[in-house]
């Protein structure tokens, strides 16, 4: 069994995309093109697929542009941005972008986070004997990949006087004393946060950068380099320090911020590979880059600093690709060019700064907030790493799937009675049936050495009908129990209640007891309801106990970090509680309140491993 890159990209970050896309489409139902759902009398519609981190800016710019009623021929141009994760959009375009399956129009402009995605797309099209679709894009705005560290940790390594890089992190990773070697035993071992390069541009860039550093090069990375023993060894060391992966850096930043608010940001992660803009977001008290209603930015107690790796780094240049695709008309192309020119205007590029990016238009000065007071350095980076050839980039992604840190995961599935409710009327499928298929599909994303087990929970289980969970498949390498897992998942049937707190607590404890420091240890818990164990009077106490247990095991330099990733499934899931449980372990909570999204959500969850 191999991890399927395609499969991962297919489902991928779409959960985020769907939500953001929906947010961008509010209808007023008028003839005026004054929002992004109704082109009004504009006949030239330019759909834009943008990576999720810039959907807000793209939407703002599109609205301004649409108000100008720029003409192509006799008709005005209407620009309509939709959020689409870079890796996923690349995959969709390589496959021809099925609008019906995707539920989104085929884009005229594609703006992924990095030009590297355009090169990979064209390479995959070339492999199919098709012409290039992306070609050379026009940078919209820039942000370099950096290694974010809590300031005291960077200072312990000699920053800012000493230039730091991946090699320093490798040294620290392999030092058996960990942070004690730098006078801080209380910080425990070195822990690194990196995202999954199948989905995340910063994850892809980080993996490219660490391979360059290991090869001692800044350019011309080759397949031969990737096979060199010292490169393989360095990758193994870096990956061994990883806390977990994931589809977005926001999980790390949010967890870090919560740990900071609790007074100790040092033991969750020592360093995370993120974009420079995320460091500014974090330090200004907005770790996920957006303020929800009622939220106010609160600066962290311990700020992060951006380390620009001394070996060099890569920029996310957010290019605009006007696609050379059969579905793009001449009028749309002209409209796209007009919008591209619009976003390059200095007054619009100035807005990039408001979102903590560096303007792509060199006429616009790089100023506040790209300032040292925010933990970043406008004079950096000094060395740029060459984006590897598309073939090498593709190979890197495939190799990461093999080289990444192994996982030890307990899959915990709710089989309460409500899981038997119909969720997909068209196909007459229940919630449980949809979840079964998603869980089975997700197994293909593990590598053979990953260890996975299956636990189900409900009330009145077991021979004596007095158990809250059953271990159906013991934790073992997927290579040995993969088929058994699929069979047992396929055979699940809905039963009784939902002893959520008890099972969350016990599953976590099970994993702590069998903790394997060489792997990412995690519980994936899927539930469609709230705690219903037949005794509602002790619910509050049970929850408090569970959260306390999870937190106590997850903090401190000697913690055995087991991450709880929860999936709130269906409209009745208790999302706030699931979030509370997940965050107590520095894991993450996922929202699959639309049962049809469960496949995408499962894929996003498994991207953490």
């Amino acid at each position, binding site marked *: 069994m191999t991890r399927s890159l395609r499969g991962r990209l297919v489902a991928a970050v779409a959960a985020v995309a769907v939500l953001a896309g929906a947010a961008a489409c509010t209808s007023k139902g008028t003839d005026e093109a004054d929002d992004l759902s109704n082109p009004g009398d504009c006949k030239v519609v330019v759909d834009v697929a943008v990576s999720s981190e810039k959907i807000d800016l793209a939407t703002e710019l599109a609205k301004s542009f649409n108000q100008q009623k720029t003409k192509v021929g006799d008709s005005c141009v209407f620009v309509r941005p939709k959020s689409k994760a870079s890796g996923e959009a690349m995959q969709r375009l390589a496959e021809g972008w099925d609008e019906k399956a995707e539920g989104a129009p085929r884009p005229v402009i594609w703006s992924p986070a990095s*030009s590297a995605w355009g*090169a990979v797309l064209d390479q995959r099209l070339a492999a199919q004997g098709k012409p290039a679709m992306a070609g*050379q*894009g*026009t*940078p919209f705005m*820039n942000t*370099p990949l950096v290694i974010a560290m809590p300031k005291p940790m960077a200072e312990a390594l000699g920053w800012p006087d000493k*230039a730091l890089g991946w090699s320093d992190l490798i040294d620290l990773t392999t030092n058996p004393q960990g942070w004690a070697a730098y006078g801080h035993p209380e910080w425990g071992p070195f822990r690194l946060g990196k995202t999954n390069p199948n989905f995340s541009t910063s994850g892809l860039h980080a993996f490219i950068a660490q391979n360059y550093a290991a090869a001692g090069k*800044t*350019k*011309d990375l080759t397949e031969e380099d990737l096979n060199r023993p010292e490169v393989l060894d360095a990758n193994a060391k870096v990956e061994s320090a990883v806390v977990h992966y994931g589809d977005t850096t926001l999980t790390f930043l949010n967890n870090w911020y919560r740990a900071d608010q609790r007074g100790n940001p040092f033991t969750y992660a020592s360093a995370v590979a993120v974009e420079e803009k995320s460091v500014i977001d974090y330090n200004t008290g907005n770790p996920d880059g957006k303020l929800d209603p009622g939220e106010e930015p609160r600066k962290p107690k311990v700020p992060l600093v951006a380390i620009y790796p*001394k070996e*060099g*780094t*890569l*920029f996310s*240049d957010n*290019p605009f690709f006007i696609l050379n695709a059969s579905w793009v008309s001449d009028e749309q192309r002209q409209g796209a060019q007009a919008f591209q020119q619009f976003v390059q205007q200095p007054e619009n590029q100035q807005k990039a700064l408001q979102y903590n990016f560096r303007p*792509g*238009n*060199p*006429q*616009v*000065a*790089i100023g506040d907030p790209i300032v040292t007071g925010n933990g970043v350095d406008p004079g*950096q*980076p*000094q*060395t*740029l790493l*060459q*984006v590897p050839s598309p073939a090498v980039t593709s190979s890197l992604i495939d190799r990461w799937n093999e080289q990444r840190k192994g996982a030890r995961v307990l899959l915990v599935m709710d089989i309460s009675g409500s899981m038997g409710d119909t969720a997909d009327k068209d196909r007459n499928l229940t919630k449980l049936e949809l979840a079964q298929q998603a869980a089975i599909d997700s197994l293909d994303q593990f590598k053979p050495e990953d260890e996975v087990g299956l636990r189900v929970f409900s009330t009145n289980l077991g021979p004596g009908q007095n158990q809250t969970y059953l271990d159906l498949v013991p934790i073992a390498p997927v290579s040995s129990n993969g088929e058994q897992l699929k069979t047992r998942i396929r055979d699940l049937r809905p039963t009784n209640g939902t002893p959520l707190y008890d099972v969350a607590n016990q599953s976590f404890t099970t994993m702590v007891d069998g903790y394997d420091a060489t792997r990412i240890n995690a519980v994936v818990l899927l539930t469609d309801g709230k705690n219903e164990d037949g005794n509602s009077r002790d619910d509050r106490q049970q929850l408090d106990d569970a959260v306390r247990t999870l937190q106590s095991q997850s903090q401190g330099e000697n913690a055995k970090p087991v991450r709880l990733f929860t999936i709130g499934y269906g409209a009745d899931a208790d999302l706030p509680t699931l979030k509370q449980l997940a965050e107590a372990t520095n894991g993450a909570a996922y929202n699959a309140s639309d049962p049809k999204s469960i496949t995408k959500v499962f894929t996003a969850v498994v991207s953490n491993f």
Partner: protein
Amino acid sequence: MRRALAVVAAVAMIALAFLVRSRSDTGGGGGDGPATVVCARELAAACQALQAKNPWLTVVTEDANRTLTTLTAAGFDPGAAEIDGWLVPAPFPAMVDETRARTGAGSALGEPTKVLARSPLVIAVWNDRRQALRSRCGEDLTWKCIGEVAGEPWGDVGGQASWGEVKPGLANPAETAIGLLGAGQAAASWFGTSDYAANDFADPAFRAWFERLARASQSSGTGTGTPLDQMLSLGPAAFDLAGSTEAAAGPSISTSRDKDRLGIVYPAPEATADVVLAPVAGSEAGARVKRLFESPDAAAALAGAGWRVDGQPAATGLPPDTALPADDGLPRPGVLQALRSLWEDVTR
């Protein structure tokens, strides 16, 4: 006497302008339908400005080598071509003629215009890098010296170790006009003359130098835009210096956020990109297109895009009184073709 001649010339130009304008407004001679001109990417801004005033004109912008490949393809039939003219630096039409002549094919292009505009080939360089290179290259920065230090750690050539390796930027000569002309100028720097030939490339010392320059140039940057574009957008991390035309570098640097950190060097031996319009042989609209590009409108468009045009003021960001050499200072077209092949060989 001089002044009188100048007045006469000015009057004649105005009269000609009215004539050309009236012809172009009505479609002019040689047919009155639409016409298509392919513009080398370096000339895109001028072409777009001209197109805006002449709706009958369609402009296609592409890299010069792509057009060259089209025009020299075995099956290319000028009579059936969908293009009427090519605006490009001068050696390229001659390269087409030479290539087609070698294969026994007829001419694809008619007689080009005289040189319409010129622009010195320059090096855009960060001031601190320029300063650091003085110890190794002296006061006058040359491509010869740049090739010698290309790829070396900055710490070894007078700069800061944190700058990484010396990263020169030359656009790909196998694709772009500026890349090929820049490579031609760089090789002239090594040979000390533009009068070199393809057989000189056999010199191992030259080949080693050229390979070092080519590899260092090709391996940096993001691949998005010219090396100068990347310097302006991403800063010194992208390239330490880059070959360009004055037309591209002058205005863009003068309006950039880095105008105080970035300078322009006019390296010896001097060379220029000289722009011509070559009509496609047998094109009905070819003569009309040629007249348009010889018109004052075209002169203004080219000058506005940073090119040097007789009688036109220098664009913002250009020194007003730069004396240009008598010729383009580049080797013969066939030598440039051989140099392009060599570049492809050493970077393969």
